[in-house]
């Protein structure tokens, strides 16, 4: 049968914490290993948390490598500023702009032919004003108002500090000086030509390096007038190497190597730890699953048969496989996830707060907003997931039903009806699918967005704080990682919690089975030896009621059979013919009365002992997956010779000979071994037991005639000389029975021999006669 989706419906545990507690107590010594792996997982998570802060240090070190060396800059600016201090500049400028207003110059101007009369007049006027003033700045102001033709003469090209300064440069300097309103003079405010600046500089030394005037000039021109860092850097690149070496950012390569090595080590260590954790966990869970399954398999055989009246085989099987698997796998995955998740979460929160409170608050708030939002969506979508399962279950049920009854569907032209129903269910599945697929697809992107949102928030707040100077850039890098570390475990914990729910539900089912009441431990008073038992059986006022029934199935039943007797049980299908067998074998215990074997109450001997005394061959022939020999020998110590001789005796040897591998042929469920042949195999199995008491369930009518004869003969041989109970389907074979028990609706309604019962003209008689009528 195909696995039904209905069964995979998410189950909820009735008592979540209770089941989990129980689960952990069942883990026994495994708990030690689990504890160990939890410790390792915590260690590994701590390492994971520690790494971002080291990565932060590493990044900080690397960022050092892109910042211009401050010390170098300071030294350079020191020597520059010593040359270009205000006093120096003033001094230099004065010398450069020294105007010789002596009589020779005045005369030469007034006599000049190239200067117009007008200019000469202006010159003389200003000259008078200059001679009257003592204020130096006013002198420059008057000077600058001089006509240019005059100025050329007044400020001729000259050499200052070995630097040639042209007349035009001087005039420009003069003009820019007079434009200055400020008292103080700095190099930046003046538009100085390179020549003038150069003339003001001196060669100087930093440590052993000589920096020439020319070099100084290039530094000044690199830094002057540029705001864009990229341009400044490329200007700086053009500087001569000896100066650049002062400016070059210095990276502490040693520290970077150390940090990298530490990181590498931590990564490897954390990997190792998490590997060992999963190793331990998978070992523990596999072994635990093994133990659970083993216990269930043992439990099956300790339960009273009445358990199986109310529980289907499929139910027990699903506990063995599905539920145990669920428990093991979920335990393996979710436990470590939960532990690492929680450690990571706590650790990250702590680390974030240690690193920076504002940033931590930003990261947590921004992520939490996202998660609350997602939680709302998830909560609302849960019903669609359940609906999908339910609808799919309905549809699958319908499909299963229709396919299984396809011949009826065809014969009754039921297609239209089936299609209508199918369309109805299919449409509903479609609707539920659309929604649940959409919603489940939403989780990933939502997570991604929350991550990115936190990221941006951290970046922006981080940037603000960096600009304020309260944190370093490395902190941002660290927080970028923290945000990821923080959001991941939140989802992991959520997922792990829901798998824990499943685990609890499944383990509940497993333990529910383990807790089922077992058959009471026996204290047999005596033991009957197989070889000595004669086979006198007596039923004395036996009363029995099936659990849950109000009326007793067997009441005041008294009968006896002596060695070699044949007792037949007849009745309609479902009349309860197997009840007696169940009581004889003590699969169920009687409520009142006694059943004795050779005078000993069967309650006084152990079940094992009782079973030894009986050979039971049932109608639903039970052949397991194994060889012919294994099936016949079963759990006896029979030799190969004994097996072959038994087979020969009941005519099974011919059939076995025709099998491809003879006695070593493996028999499966769907083999070509017919029902009759199966029955023969079980008879052979029973014969090997050689017990004094026999319970036989006659062959079904589904056996072909020849095999049926064989089976009948084999049964006769098996029962020969022994007390036998025969559940009969064909009334012809039991006419010679010593006692016939007629059952109807679970009760023994008539007891007697064939003749007696026919005479009575009751249930048996009508049953017997109905075979001959039409």
């Amino acid at each position, binding site marked *: 049968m195909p696995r039904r989706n209905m069964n995979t419906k998410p189950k909820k545990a009735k008592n979540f914490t209770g089941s989990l507690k129980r689960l952990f107590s069942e883990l026994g010594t495994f708990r030690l290993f689990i504890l160990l792996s939890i410790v390792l997982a915590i260690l590994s998570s701590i390492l994971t948390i520690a790494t971002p802060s080291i990565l932060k240090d590493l990044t900080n070190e690397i*960022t050092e490598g892109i910042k211009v060396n401050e010390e170098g800059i300071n030294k350079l600016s020191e020597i520059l500023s010593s040359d270009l201090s205000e006093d120096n500049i003033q001094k230099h400028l004065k010398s450069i702009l020294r105007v010789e207003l002596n009589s020779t110059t005045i005369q030469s101007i007034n006599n000049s032919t190239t200067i117009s009369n007008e200019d000469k007049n202006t010159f003389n006027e200003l000259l008078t004003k200059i001679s009257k003033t003592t204020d130096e700045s006013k002198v420059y102001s008057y000077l600058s108002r001089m006509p240019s033709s005059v100025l050329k003469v007044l400020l001729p090209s000259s050499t200052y500090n070995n630097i040639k300064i042209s007349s035009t440069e001087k005039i420009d300097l003069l003009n820019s000086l007079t434009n200055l309103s400020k008292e103080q003079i700095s190099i930046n405010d003046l538009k100085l030509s390179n020549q003038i600046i150069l003339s003001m500089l001196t060669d100087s030394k930093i440590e052993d390096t000589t920096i020439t005037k020319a070099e100084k000039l290039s530094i000044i021109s690199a830094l002057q007038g540029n705001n864009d860092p990229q341009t400044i850097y*490329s200007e700086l690149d053009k500087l001569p190497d000896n100066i650049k070496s002062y400016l070059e950012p210095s990276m502490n390569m040693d520290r970077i190597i150390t940090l990298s090595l530490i990181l590498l080590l931590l990564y490897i260590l954390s*990997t190792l730890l998490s590997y060992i954790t999963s190793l331990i966990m998978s070992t523990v869970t596999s072994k635990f699953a093994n133990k659970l399954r083993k216990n269930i398999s043992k439990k099956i055989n300790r339960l009273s048969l009445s358990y199986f009246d109310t529980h289907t085989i499929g139910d027990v099987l699903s506990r063995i496989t599905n539920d145990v698997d669920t428990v093991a796998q979920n335990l393996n995955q979710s436990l470590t996830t939960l532990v690492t998740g929680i450690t990571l979460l706590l650790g990250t929160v702590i680390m974030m707060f240690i690193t920076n409170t504002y940033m931590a608050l930003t990261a947590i708030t921004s992520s939490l907003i996202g998660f609350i939002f997602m939680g709302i969506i998830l909560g609302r979508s849960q019903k669609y997931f359940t609906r999908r399962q339910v609808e799919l279950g309905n549809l699958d049920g319908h*499909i*299963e039903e229709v396919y299984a009854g*396809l011949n009826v569907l065809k014969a009754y032209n039921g297609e239209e009806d089936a*299609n209508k129903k199918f369309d109805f269910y299919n449409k509903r*599945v479609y609707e539920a699918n659309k929604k649940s697929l959409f919603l489940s697809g939403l989780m990933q992107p939502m997570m991604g967005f929350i991550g990115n949102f936190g990221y941006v928030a951290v970046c922006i707040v981080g940037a603000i704080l960096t600009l304020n100077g309260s944190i370093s850039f490395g902190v941002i890098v660290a927080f970028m990682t923290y945000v990821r570390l923080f959001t991941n475990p939140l989802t992991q914990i959520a997922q792990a919690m829901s798998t824990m729910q499943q685990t609890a539900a499944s383990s509940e089912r497993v333990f529910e089975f383990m807790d089922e009441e077992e058959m009471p431990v026996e204290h047999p008073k005596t033991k009957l030896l197989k070889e000595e038992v004669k086979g006198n059986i007596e039923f004395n006022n036996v009363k029995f009621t099936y659990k849950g029934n109000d009326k007793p199935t067997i009441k005041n039943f008294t009968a006896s059979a002596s060695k070699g007797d044949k007792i037949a049980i007849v009745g309609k299908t479902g009349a309860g013919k197997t009840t007696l067998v169940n009581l004889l074998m003590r699969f169920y215990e009687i409520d009142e009365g006694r059943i004795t074997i050779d005078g000993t109450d069967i309650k006084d001997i152990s079940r094992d002992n009782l079973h030894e005394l009986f050979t039971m061959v049932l109608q639903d022939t039970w052949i397991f997956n194994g060889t012919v020999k294994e099936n016949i020998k079963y759990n006896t110590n029979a030799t190969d010779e004994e097996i072959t001789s038994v087979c020969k005796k009941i005519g099974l040897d011919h059939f076995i000979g025709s099998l491809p591998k003879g006695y070593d042929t493996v028999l499966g469920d769907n083999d070509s071994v017919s029902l009759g042949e199966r029955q023969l195999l079980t008879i052979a199995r029973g014969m090997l037991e050689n017990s004094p008491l026999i319970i036989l369930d006659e062959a079904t009518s589904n056996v072909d005639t020849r095999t049926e004869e064989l089976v009948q003969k084999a049964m006769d041989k098996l029962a020969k000389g022994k007390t036998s109970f025969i559940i009969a389907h064909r009334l012809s074979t039991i006419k010679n029975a010593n006692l016939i028990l007629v059952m109807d609706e679970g009760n023994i309604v008539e007891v007697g021999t064939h003749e007696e019962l026919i005479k009575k003209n009751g249930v048996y008689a009508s049953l017997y006669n109905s075979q001959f009528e039409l």
Partner: protein
Amino acid sequence: MFKLFKKFEKKEWLIILFVLLLTIFQVFLELKMPDYMSEITSLVETSGSSMSDIIRNGLYMLVCALGSLITSVIIGFAVSRIASNFSYKTRKEVFTKVEELGMAEVKDFSTSSLITRTTNDITQIEMLIGLGMQLIFRAPVMAIWAITKILNKSAEWSTYTAIGIVILMSVVSILMVFVIPKFKKIQKLTDELNNKARENLTGIRVVRAFNAEKYQEKRFKRVNDDLTKIQLFNQRTLAILMPIISLVMYVLTLTIYYTGASFISDAALSSKLTIFSNMIVFSSYSMQVIMSFLMLAVIFMIIPRAQVSATRINEVLEKDISIKDGHISRKINDEVGTVEFRHVSFKYPDAEEYLLKNISFKVNKGETIAFIGSTGSGKSTLINLVPRFYDATEGEILVNGVDVREYKQKHLHDILGYVPQKAVLFSGTVASNVKYGDNGKKELTDDEIKEAIKIANAEDFVLKMENKYNEHIAQSGQNISGGQKQRLAIARAIARNPEIYIFDDSFSALDYKTDLELRKAIKAHTKDATLMIVAQRIGTIMNADKIVVLDKGKCVGIGTHKELLKTCDVYKEIALSQLSEEELKNA
């Protein structure tokens, strides 16, 4: 699988194209984000940058993230539509196809396999489309785009990333090579474990009667231990996967940072800053590249599984239907209630052995014909040829004088009332099951339903039920007993009031008495109807007008009970195995 995708309509292809474009747009947005990140990085790094610049870039990044989220929502909406529409339509198609299949084809597939093909297999592919389509589009687009983004940044870093990918991919493939065959083995062992437990449970009385509890536990333990061993191997092997993945990713980042540091220190002042922001960007892109390669690996793991499902679905859809519908849909002659077999032989299409060989007989209106023989003699097969569950390989079968192959199946089935070997009920009510199907006449009245139930000897238990005729019947009739199911199935046939009844071993599950009462009632009600009965009990058929004795697919005798006892050894043998000589005489 592509065959299945051909079923997409133009509209759906447009949506898929739209999804692809959206995915590209989404990847664009997502890969744009690291650009803004690096922008923010250098802004933060440079003193004097304005706050507004940083916030602006942060907002851009957020817009990208939001855009990507919205795109995801749209993609998710479109894809969920495509996926559920696909499964909706394909399921319908498979279902309709299965309805058309002949029983031979059904047997070929096996019912349970057909069920899984219609349910689980389609769900598998739906999942692939629903969750996989985004992945299938995204992973390659992401990988290619991210690669082109980083390829020209640094050859060295690209090499490291490539090495990382190669390591990861080799680890994944090596693990898969080791683990996947073991997974199949686990599946097998789980089945075996189930079998061992089932065996103990089904044979629980035998196990106890033989005191074989320990023996069974040992058998179970062996499989349990084998299973545990393989599971341990698998889980231990797989345990390395996640740590390796994260190690590779971490180490790659570290390598990029470390080499980045030396690049920066060697570089000219002006390019240091560029290298630094490149480094940050690269390390984030290289993670994207690795993630997309991991996604690709996941896809390669999902696709084969879906492929298997797709093949299984296609097998059903492409199956040739051996039963072709005829054209006669109304009465064309005066013959009523006759069935004639003319030299009919039958074998399954691929089988060598004939299950039926040269069978001929005719049954007339109001007669009862019975078929008897041992298991495998072909009696069920024979009777299944009448409603065309199978078609005869040779010879012809006439119903009312017309070859069954010429009838429209619906019309043929209107003539017949078929009761299967194993009673089949459908979920609904008692009444809905009795009036099930369509017999070409008007819908049954409540009285007719009650009458049919009465005739089928089902009235007593139906009236005992809480809701009587409206009692709920669970799926496949699980909530009522086998005998009750059988009687309702017979009531269903009676309610149809057909010309010809076919009882395919429908009485064996009933005890002699019920069997007898039922047959009497049917006979009384259906005086004019023709009865075809497959039976195992001599008692059931002794009084039939004609008994056909089958042995290994051949007809070894036709006649009445008395005639056959004299002339047919096989019949006599069967009779004697069930009744004593004396009883036979009495009868």
